[in-house]
């Protein structure tokens, strides 16, 4: 990952936030003065460095953490838009990254009861919930989608 990769990574994240979805390679190329192939090559290096996560074809973004490019059970309202987060941790990361308040909606994996809470100034408005992390930190990137 070199400075050009970081520049493309930053273009990618800005495009994600502006579009409200994952950009495709051509959309990032237009912003970065690059080519679609150049963006894909850069994304692949960023994927290898865990700066984002691509699908198995390495041409489409699956995760630009904390944002998810695909629907998940973790929805977040922040900055006037609904987002998908990759997990509960990332759900709190979206308002943090956007530097704003947010509303998180998910469901208890045990009973499927809806869970909703607001986050104001980084603080959850309810403290009764429990976060469970199944995989130890040493293995988070062994299978990031499972983690």
């Amino acid at each position: 990952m070199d400075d050009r990769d970081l520049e493309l990574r930053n273009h990618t994240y800005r495009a994600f936030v502006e579009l409200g979805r994952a950009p495709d390679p051509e959309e990032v190329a237009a912003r970065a003065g690059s080519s679609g192939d150049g963006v894909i090559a850069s994304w692949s290096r960023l994927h290898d460095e865990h700066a984002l996560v691509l699908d198995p074809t390495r041409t489409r973004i699956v995760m630009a953490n904390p944002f998810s490019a695909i629907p998940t059970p973790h929805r977040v309202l922040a900055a006037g838009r609904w987002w998908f987060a990759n997990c509960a941790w990332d759900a709190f990361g979206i308002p943090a990254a956007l530097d704003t308040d947010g509303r998180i909606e998910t469901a208890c994996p045990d009973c499927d009861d809806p869970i909703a809470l607001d986050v104001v100034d980084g603080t959850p408005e309810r403290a009764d919930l429990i976060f469970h992390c199944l995989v130890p930190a040493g293995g988070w990137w062994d299978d990031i989608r499972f983690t």
Partner: protein
Amino acid sequence: MNLFRSEEHVHEWLNGRRPGTSIPVTTLAALASRWWADRLAPDWRPHTREQNQAILDGLGLTGDFWRLP
């Protein structure tokens, strides 16, 4: 990495599987804020392992479970 209504719901969900670790949602929020707050910064650089471990340590998330590779 999920939110549960209570520790009892975690136990039921695990259904005999080996548990990971549970933390209060307030700690999770603090962790997320420190971990992700710079993600859209124009001068973003990847966190080093040491930076990330310091975030975990600073919230009392220590021990083998929270040790980054």
